[in-house]
């Protein structure tokens, strides 16, 4: 399973867990318009840390991801 599909899957899982109606996910969709609020994103980051063993935010020095594509890229780059 690619990092991209894992991230998408866990996003859907968190959305379901928190009763959120997720917008159709695309790379250009702003993360905060995806239907996930900041609590959901915090949970998402924690679950991804657990599943992928990476927390790109721990080392993050720069800006926070704005779009879903930025978010996925963070994980892809961290795992690379």
């Amino acid at each position: 399973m690619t990092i991209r599909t894992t991230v998408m899957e866990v996003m859907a899982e968190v959305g379901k867990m928190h009763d959120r109606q997720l917008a159709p996910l695309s790379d250009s969709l702003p993360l905060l318009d995806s239907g996930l609020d900041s609590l959901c994103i915090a949970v998402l980051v924690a679950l991804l840390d657990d599943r992928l063993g990476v927390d790109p935010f721990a080392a993050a020095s720069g800006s926070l991801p704005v779009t879903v594509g930025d978010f996925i890229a963070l994980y892809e780059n961290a795992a690379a």
Partner: protein
Amino acid sequence: MPLPEQRSFRDLTVAAGAAPARFAADVTRRVGFAELVAGGTLEPPLERFRGQSVLIWCERQLAAARILLEIDGIAARLVLCPSDFSPAHLPAVAAEAEVTAIVTDSATMAASAAGDLPVSVVDTVGRYAPSADCDRSFATEWILFTSGTSDRPKLVVHTLASLTGPIEGRAPASDVVWSTFYDIRRYGGLQILLRAFVGGASMVFSDANEPVAAFLERAGPCGVTHISGTPSHWRRALMSNAIDHIAPRYIRLSGEVADQAILDALATAFPSAAIAHAFASTEAGLAFDVDDGRAGFPAALIGQAGGKAELRIVDGSLRIRSPRNAARYLGDRGALKDAHGFVDTKDMLELRDGRYYFVGRREGVINVGGQKVHPEEVEAVINRVPAVRMARVRAQRSPITGALVVADIVLQPAAANESFDRVKAEIVAACRAALPPYKVPAMLRAVSSLDIAASGKLVRRHA
């Protein structure tokens, strides 16, 4: 103002009678009360302790109890070191309590206590004359350690009068056999020692080095009728395969929040026992007992004047004023009471349907993106899930919200073979039904056990 007649621990114990049925037992010995009051463990003359500040540092609780009997009313101050007392803290504690003598039952402890202070080594056998005619009229200070973290403990000043406040006026009951999971050098355990000795009953001591199953197997044949511990002690006991060895008629919980799950589990395990949970702390003393089998306490207790303990809520936390309050901290460790003489317990309360519930400690709050979560309120929900024996909720750092709520779960032995994913789903569903989303654990981990500190409380590490 003339002082009321001062009666020592020994006076009160002797006055409760030495019925042949009365005994005190620990992991190695069983002693009748006649022997207990007729023999001394400290080499005479006891006059050498007059006016002294004596540090009692014993491995065996029975040894410590005998020393209390022998020199309360003679010494100026008795410092009660619990079993987990760290020698590293000895110099600071000795300085703060102005210790002038050390009494121990252990050669190892005597060696590590070596310094300029005189050390007396005792065992639990009363080989000396009892020094019954000693003047024991001094209002000795009893110094207890706070049960907090691994930091240097605060030293809390009680007297026998403040400690026995909760049991005043009770008729002696020689058919009662008390026991407790607590160390008697802790407030919760000391209450039980006093109930047994001053209350005319018998006492079975626990031991820090004894596994819980072995303790229950020993307590059962001793005929224990009354037994106390923290909710964590009780969860651990219910998880042992030896719980059937005891058949108490009275069960007491204190020291931590007693949630409905543990009260129900005990009621199921011991259908004919009376079950009470008490609110007490080392600083505030015993405030009240709740014996209706329900978590929390009736709202009417707050603000009642003229009761044994006056209760107030200030900034969400419970404050208590009563003659059972400790007097002060030793040394420069801050004020123990507020300007009105109330002790702030720092235990946060919430009112629901005419009843107050403890939601957690002020300093244990998890901050999830500015929203406050008390670990205990989440644990109470998780503990209601049938497959769960105990839970610890803690903070996990989050780059997004600062912190997140996560939980470590110990399953019931019967649920050990269940799929953890199924139990997880059940826990999440229970939390989502009872709590706002930010309080629902983001992650759940199965663990085989959770650490319980020597104080009997679940080990928490505050972020």
